[in-house]
């Protein structure tokens, strides 16, 4: 299967701490690849390097076969890397629609000083389509600060969708959600894999086991195992290091 996103030999050190130790992983078309591991394993550091917020000491990041290691986060987004955050990074005082239109603007819209950003047209259509896709179409006029936590998660996904990404990188999309919210986001992510593969960092193991085609386990900055759900569940080293014996 074709690799859409690849991290090859990523190394990152903060002083004496080795946060990423020669990490190689790939995200294939149509899959959800979950990255799991205990707190402090280096998952967020790896995600930050893939998305361009941290520069690796060594290694490369490839998107659609093109080397994007030297690109800024904004340039990576324009190349088709859609990102959501553990803590919602949205324009909280703006409306849901304004946030979605912002995504559409980044996807090739013109940052013109003229006209209205919310006027009917391709930008608005793209934003509305993304809101419809995540089920937030009736909330378009609501301020983001007035949304529930789960709705903000949905909006993050909608904004990433407006970019028509080649790949999604999602950092704990279920964080802080109740059971119902987790179920909604799980269903949403499940339906997204056909549009673009998802590299998913998540602590909610029920969601991970329900969604992931493959799982990589990161411990102390190194990947100790990669495989299907069944393979990871059965891996004795993973059980010892992360899942526990009852998993």
């Amino acid at each position: 299967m074709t690799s859409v996103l690849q991290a090859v030999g990523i190394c990152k050190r903060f002083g004496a701490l080795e946060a990423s130790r020669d990490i190689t992983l790939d995200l294939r078309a149509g899959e959800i690849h979950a990255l799991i591991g205990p707190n402090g394993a280096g998952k967020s550091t790896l995600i930050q390097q893939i998305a361009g917020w941290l520069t690796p000491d060594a290694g490369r990041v490839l998107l659609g076969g093109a080397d994007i290691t030297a690109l800024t986060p904004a340039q990576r987004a324009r190349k088709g890397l859609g990102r959501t955050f553990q803590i919602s990074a949205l324009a909280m005082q703006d409306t849901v629609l304004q946030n979605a239109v912002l995504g559409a603007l980044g996807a090739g819209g013109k940052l013109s000083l003229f006209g209205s950003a919310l006027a009917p047209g391709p930008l608005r259509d793209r934003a509305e389509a993304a809101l419809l896709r995540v089920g937030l179409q009736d909330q378009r006029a609501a301020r983001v600060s007035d949304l529930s936590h789960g709705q903000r998660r949905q909006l993050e996904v909608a904004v990433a969708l407006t970019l028509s990404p080649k790949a999604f990188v999602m950092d704990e999309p279920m964080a802080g959600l109740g059971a119902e919210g987790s179920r909604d986001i799980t269903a949403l992510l499940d339906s997204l894999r056909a549009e673009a593969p998802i590299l998913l960092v998540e602590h909610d193991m029920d969601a991970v086991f329900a969604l992931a085609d493959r799982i990589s386990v990161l411990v102390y900055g190194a990947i100790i195992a990669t495989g299907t759900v069944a393979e990871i569940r059965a891996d004795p080293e993973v059980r010892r290091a992360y899942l526990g014996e009852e998993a």
Partner: protein
Amino acid sequence: MREHWVNIALVAGLIAFPAYALWVDEPFLITLATRAVILALAGVGLNIALGIGGLVSLGHAVFFGLGGYAMGILASHAQTFDPIYAGAFTINGTKSMPVIWLVAIATSAIAALAIGALSLRTTGVYFIMITLAFGQMFFYFAISWPAYGGEDGLSIYVRNGFPGLNALVPIQFYALCLVLLFAALALHWQIARSPFGLALNAARQSSVRVETVGIAPYRLRLIAFTISGMVTGLAGALFADLNRFVSPTMFSWQFSGEIMVFVIIGGVARLFGPVVGAVLFITLEHSLGGLSDYWLIYLGALLLGIVLFARGGIIGVIAGRGGHD
């Protein structure tokens, strides 16, 4: 009451004010109102950077001063018939307001672009300090520039001209300044609703979000800072024309602070926030300034009250939620 109606009331009040001044037989009030309108224009300029872009600039007096000195230099050479430059070609001074305005805007734009290009590489308190440092550089340069009056400033004996108007008549100069204020307000309104404004406003709230959708916040902020400087520069040229005098105090950091106070009192990111702030400032200065030299204490108390209890400024109190509150 909706902000829309507050704005309409303010426009009506600004248009009708000269009639009131003439009715109460106090033509001096028109000059006072002209001062308020010009200071509001400077505030509208800052509000583009501060209100939409969240750029807390303590150096906007640079652009105000540059606009003022553009007027002072051009007009002083015109009144002495002494060319500004005589070499391979000649550059003469001028008493034409439209030409002076264009020079003031262009000069401010170049300065804002250069200052912004450096200072926008920083954020937060560092950005504030760098803009403040630029302000002080221009302030001390003006003091040490004897060709144009140095510390004493530069007097212009006759008000500059505008085709078809007698700008020496207070009501005509007021009308001219008011039209420019309305044009600047229209510019702010258009920027705020445009795709550029949407992205700039989002960058103020979450720089990470904007980068994550593929937009570089630095470019947005630099453009906004430059436009903001241009508007404030125009205000400086008008202020110099009103007083027929320019001095280094136009570059002072205190003045940068005053413009910011207009915006905060009126309401940050509120379209008419700087107008309310400037009008209130001039009103307090006029009404309390005669009673006490320490009238700024009352302004300080008002500012404190607004920052603590009314984050949307006076317009926020009247019109409710909006802007940044």
